[in-house]
């Protein structure tokens, strides 16, 4: 053999066909009202980073839950070394050699690293701190990390805590290591370090399952990529193919898998006619918002009357912070907001509303409505104390009821009575009531935050129709959505948000899907 030593022996050595350690044999898991995993099949090979890629709600966490013993499949089976097993508890998963590092740390913050590792022995025994430290030092040396066994876990960074969990899993003899959204809370440097660590783990023959929704991480850290979408496995790219494709072609293929095909757009998705030449109604310049998780930086957007500007992006990239800052629910660090020539950035929520800026929140029950209050009152939640519904501090039941009856009829809210507490209605009807409140009166610009999230098909259609009508009336509309189909269906232009910044704005034409997909996944960022 004159060849240099292969980086991943199992794949570069054709004589020994790799045998999977773990096989998921068409597992199905249902939760009330949703099929979280629908006949998903996949194999885990030793010495390989297997990436599970998919949007939020694609079923990644459920799949991990079944491997790590938190859930059991309703149908299908799990095979380890070709033998069918039942993983009924996290303890059983550990026994079988499957270690999991969850997105949220599974360490006890008030205990030291060594005590966390010693946890779980016979009750009256002394925790073997010295022994743990010794074995830890060895594993740490094997995989090239440094951890102080006496340090209290609560004082470690999130990246260090993950290293502790990885070391712990290896100390317990894990051959399979599951990293669930492990990079979600890490800094870019931390994510890179973790990627390098995954590489070192595979060289020890460990099978790593890496769950992410970031395409660039999948490509740079993964050997094999499986894409999930709405609970189904929609594709798998084997290591040989991944290498053969090259980054650009692999990206294109994954985007196609993650966000659907280019063909077959819905019939009623005829692109809206833009109104060229109209002066922008809502102008956002240099908007910045402080936030510990996702700070928003320098957002510049302009929306013309009658235009729908889609704001696409993977959930948690600053959309919520941006929307709340726009609506006045969060302080701005910098930037200007101008609506029809009026500066709004110094005004409070009520004043912004009075000037015609409306916000349809995605948190319908939490901040959109008060569940125990009557529908009639919820329809006036942002006008409490205002005439003609209140006079001199006293409510005017007639006026309130008349207002409620009109909106309930106009927006087709299905309710036994206008006095029914709004929390008793279905999600679709609550959304109708919210739309009624925000779209009525002197609205000039509307921000929709994930307007169809959690609704059924009929209500999705009705809500989208309302959004179109709002634009047709000449309102400036910003549509924030994590559903790319929805953005493509409704928008005139599409802005893409990633890590708190708008990374691009594209016209909604035939090439939009691919462009937006690339921007969303952070490949071109």
């Amino acid at each position, binding site marked *: 053999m004159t060849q240099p030593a292969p980086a991943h022996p199992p794949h570069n050595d054709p004589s020994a066909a790799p045998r999977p350690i773990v096989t998921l044999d068409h597992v199905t898991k249902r939760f009330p009202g949703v099929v979280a995993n629908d006949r998903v099949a996949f194999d885990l090979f030793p010495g390989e980073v297997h990436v599970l890629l998919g949007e939020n709600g694609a079923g990644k966490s459920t799949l991990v*839950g079944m491997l790590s013993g938190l859930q059991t499949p309703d149908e299908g089976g799990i095979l380890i070394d070709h033998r069918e097993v039942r993983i009924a508890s996290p303890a059983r998963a*550990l026994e079988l050699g499957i270690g999991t590092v969850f997105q949220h740390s599974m360490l006890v913050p008030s205990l030291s690293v060594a005590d*966390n590792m010693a946890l779980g022995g*016979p*009750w009256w025994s002394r*925790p073997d701190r010295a022994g743990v430290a010794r074995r830890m030092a060895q594993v740490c040396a094997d995989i090239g990390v440094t951890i102080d066994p006496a340090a209290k876990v609560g004082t470690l960074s999130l990246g260090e805590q993950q290293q502790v969990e990885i070391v712990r899993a290896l100390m317990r003899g894990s051959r399979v290591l599951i990293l669930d959204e492990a990079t979600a809370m890490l800094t870019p440097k931390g994510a890179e370090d973790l990627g390098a660590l995954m590489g070192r783990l595979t060289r020890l023959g460990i099978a790593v399952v890496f769950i992410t929704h970031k395409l660039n991480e999948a490509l740079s850290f993964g050997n094999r990529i499986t894409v999930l979408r709405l609970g189904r496995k929609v594709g798998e790219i084997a290591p040989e193919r991944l290498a053969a494709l090259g980054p650009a072609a692999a990206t294109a293929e994954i985007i196609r898998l993650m966000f659907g095909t280019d063909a077959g757009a819905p019939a009623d998705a005829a692109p809206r006619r833009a109104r060229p030449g109209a002066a922008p109604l809502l102008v956002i310049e240099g908007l910045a918002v402080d936030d510990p998780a996702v700070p928003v930086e320098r957002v510049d957007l302009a929306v013309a009357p009658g235009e729908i500007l889609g704001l696409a992006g993977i959930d948690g990239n600053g959309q919520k912070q941006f929307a709340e800052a726009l609506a006045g629910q969060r302080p701005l660090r910098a930037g200007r907001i101008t609506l029809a020539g009026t500066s709004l950035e110094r005004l409070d929520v009520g004043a912004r509303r009075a000037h015609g800026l409306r916000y349809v929140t995605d948190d319908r029950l939490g901040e959109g409505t008060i569940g125990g209050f009557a529908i009639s009152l919820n329809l006036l939640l942002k006008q409490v104390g205002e005439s003609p519904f209140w006079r001199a501090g006293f409510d005017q039941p007639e006026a309130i009821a008349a207002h409620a009856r009109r909106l309930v009829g106009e927006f087709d809210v299905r309710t036994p009575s206008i006095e029914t507490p709004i929390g008793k209605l279905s999600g679709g009807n609550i959304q109708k009531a919210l739309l009624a409140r925000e779209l009525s009166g002197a609205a000039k610009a509307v921000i929709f935050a994930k307007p169809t999230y959690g609704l059924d098909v009929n209500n999705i259609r009705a809500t989208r129709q309302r959004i179109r009508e709002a634009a047709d009336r000449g309102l400036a509309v910003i549509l924030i959505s994590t559903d790319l189909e929805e953005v493509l269906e409704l928008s005139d232009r599409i802005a893409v948000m990633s890590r708190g910044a708008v990374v691009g704005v594209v016209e909604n034409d035939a090439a939009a899907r691919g462009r937006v997909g690339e921007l969303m996944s952070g490949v071109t960022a």
Partner: protein
Amino acid sequence: MSALFTDAFLTSLVLGALTAGIPLMLAGLGEQISEKAGVLNIGIEGMMLFGAYAGFLVAYHTGSIWLGFLGGAVGGMAVAVPMAVLCIRMGLSQIVIGIALTLGAEGLTALLHHFQFAQSYPRLPAVETLPIPVLSSLPVVGPALFDRPPIVYLAVLAVFVTAYVFRATQFGLALQAAGDKPAALDAAGVDVVRVRTIAVLITGGLAGVGGAFMAEVGAGIFVPFMTNGAGFIGIVLAMQARGKPLWVLCGALLFGACLSATTALQVAGVSIPTDVIQMLPFAAVLTVLVLFGRKASLPPALGTHYVRGAR
């Protein structure tokens, strides 16, 4: 004022601090174990009271002080069992159940006492003391601290045993984890419900012995409602002690001293109105809470029901 600090006064104060402090300490220690495991045990007042009744009943009928303490422990645990079943297994509100158990124990013991002892009010004989050689002949503190019933020494020993269990056993780690991050404990293969159940039963046992101490050593008699909020002071002690058993002991002696100051001041012949003196323990509780209450660190999972897989 120098006349105040006579030997008689000091001996009386230290003795009183110990007699009143031991039940508080046992309650505080028990509560600390529950809270460490993430259970806010409001029912501890009921556990003490039932322990006091059961302890007195057994000691009265058997004539054995030791069987009395055993009876007190069993009585306290009897109240802890419904707490464990309803709150830890079934996930009902720990506060509501705790209050219900306390009220229930108060009513039940008063009723039982009414039928059994309301006519006779029998007393137990004074408990024999065990003088510790050499130490008991020290001036002032000797007779007050080292010529006490053996149960006192055992109770103080329990503080150090608890400290050892917390620090140096797997059970101690499991308790800490159950209150700090139960999901992590579950993932380590330890049954969170079992750890918490055992913690609550230990609490019941310690609180029951504390109650029995009040009836057998302190008063020599059982009267309804005799614990008089000692369990609640135990909760305050546990919260201030930040997981350290030794702090519970110190706090309990401080409160005990305040409680016993009435007697001691009378012994010293000081003529302060008794109403003022009787306010001392409660003033002390308030002062401690104002000074240290904001720094009290409670386990993050305190009072929450653990459900596997829920986030």
